[in-house]
C-alpha cells in the first residue's frame, strides 16, 4: 500500500521555483498564475511524468499533443451535434439510434465506449451523472465540469434531481418526468435538449449559440435566444 501521506508540513508561504514544464505549455493552456505544487500527490504526478519521459515511454511532445487534443473538444463540439439534430430529422434519427456511430459524421470517436443519446420531450427530462466516478461523454463535450466529479452532485442527483436542478437555477413543471441516467466506464450519455420555442427557422449555426454544456448534461435548458 501507499505509505506516503499528504498531511506532512508544507511551506505554503514559500515562493517555489517550481517547474511547470513550461516548454510543454500549450499557448491556450497556460498554468494558472497561482498554481502551486504542494501535496505529495502533486509532486508524485510530476515525478511520474519525468520518469516516463526519461525512460522513453512517452515524449514531451506527446504530452503536449494530448493536452491540445483534450482542449480541442469543448461543449461547442456537442452543440454542433445537437443543432444538427434539431435541424436535420434524419440525423436526429441516426443519433438516437446509435450515438457512437452518428458522431463519426463530425469526425469524433467514442474510443471504444458507447454513446447513448437521450432525448428530452415535453413529458420527459433527462439528466446524466456518474455516481461511482466521473464517466462523461468527454469525446463530445470535453472534460467534465468540477461539480460533475464532486460528491454532492453524484450523491444527490439520483435521489433528489429536482432539488439539484434548482441549485442550477432550473425549474421543471411538476408533470414532467425526470430521468437520471447513471453512466458507466463503457456507456456514456448525452442529453438531446428540446429546441426552444420561437427558434424554428434559425440556422444550425445560430442554434449552436443557444446550447450550453449544462443543457447537454441536463441540469439546464437551452437558452431561448
Amino acid at each position, binding site marked *: 500500500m501507499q505509505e506516503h501521506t499528504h498531511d506532512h508540513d508544507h511551506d505554503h508561504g514559500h515562493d517555489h*521555483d517550481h517547474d511547470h514544464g513550461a516548454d510543454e505549455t500549450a499557448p491556450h493552456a497556460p498554468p494558472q498564475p497561482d498554481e502551486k505544487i504542494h501535496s505529495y500527490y502533486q509532486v508524485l504526478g510530476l515525478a511520474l511524468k519525468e520518469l516516463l519521459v526519461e525512460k522513453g515511454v512517452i515524449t514531451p511532445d506527446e504530452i503536449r499533443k494530448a493536452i491540445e487534443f483534450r482542449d480541442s473538444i469543448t461543449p461547442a463540439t456537442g452543440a454542433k451535434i445537437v443543432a444538427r439534430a434539431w435541424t436535420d430529422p434524419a440525423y436526429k434519427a441516426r443519433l438516437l439510434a446509435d450515438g457512437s456511430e452518428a458522431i463519426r459524421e463530425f469526425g469524433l470517436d467514442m474510443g471504444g465506449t458507447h454513446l447513448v443519446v437521450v432525448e428530452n420531450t415535453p413529458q420527459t427530462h433527462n439528466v446524466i451523472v456518474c*455516481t461511482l466516478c466521473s464517466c462523461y461523454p468527454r469525446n463530445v463535450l470535453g472534460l467534465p465540469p468540477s461539480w460533475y466529479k464532486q460528491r454532492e452532485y453524484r450523491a*444527490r442527483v439520483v435521489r433528489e434531481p429536482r432539488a439539484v436542478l434548482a441549485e442550477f437555477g432550473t425549474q421543471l413543471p411538476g408533470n414532467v418526468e425526470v430521468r437520471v441516467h447513471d453512466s458507466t466506464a463503457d456507456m456514456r450519455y448525452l442529453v438531446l435538449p428540446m429546441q426552444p420555442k420561437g427558434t424554428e427557422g434559425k440556422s444550425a449555426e445560430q442554434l449552436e449559440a443557444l446550447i450550453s454544456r449544462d443543457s447537454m448534461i441536463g441540469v439546464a435548458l437551452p437558452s431561448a435566444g
Partner: protein
Amino acid sequence: MRGPHDIGGLEAGPVDTGAHPMTFWEKQIDALNQLMAQKGFRKTDENRRYIEQLGDDAYNTLSYYERWTASLSRVLIEKGVLTQDEIDAKVAEVRARLGQDAA
C-alpha cells in the same frame, strides 16, 4: 458494504456549481492517463480499481486528480513500467527542486 466511491443516493450538501478551470497540473495528469491508456499500459477499469481501493480517508481527502495520480502510480508499478524505488527517488528529486523539505 459500500466502497468510498459508491455514493449514489447518499445525503450530501449543496452542489458547488461554480466554474473551477482545470490547472495545468491537472491537464498533465489527464494527458498522462490518456497516453498510458493509448499505449496499453492502463485500462479504465484498472484505474478505477486502484481508486476504489484507496480507502475512505484517502478517497475523501485527495482531490480528483490526486486520486488519479495515486492510481496511475500503482498501475505503472504493477505493469513493471516503473518501480517504487525509482518513484521515491524521483519524488525526492522533484521535491528538492521545488524547495520542499522531504516528508
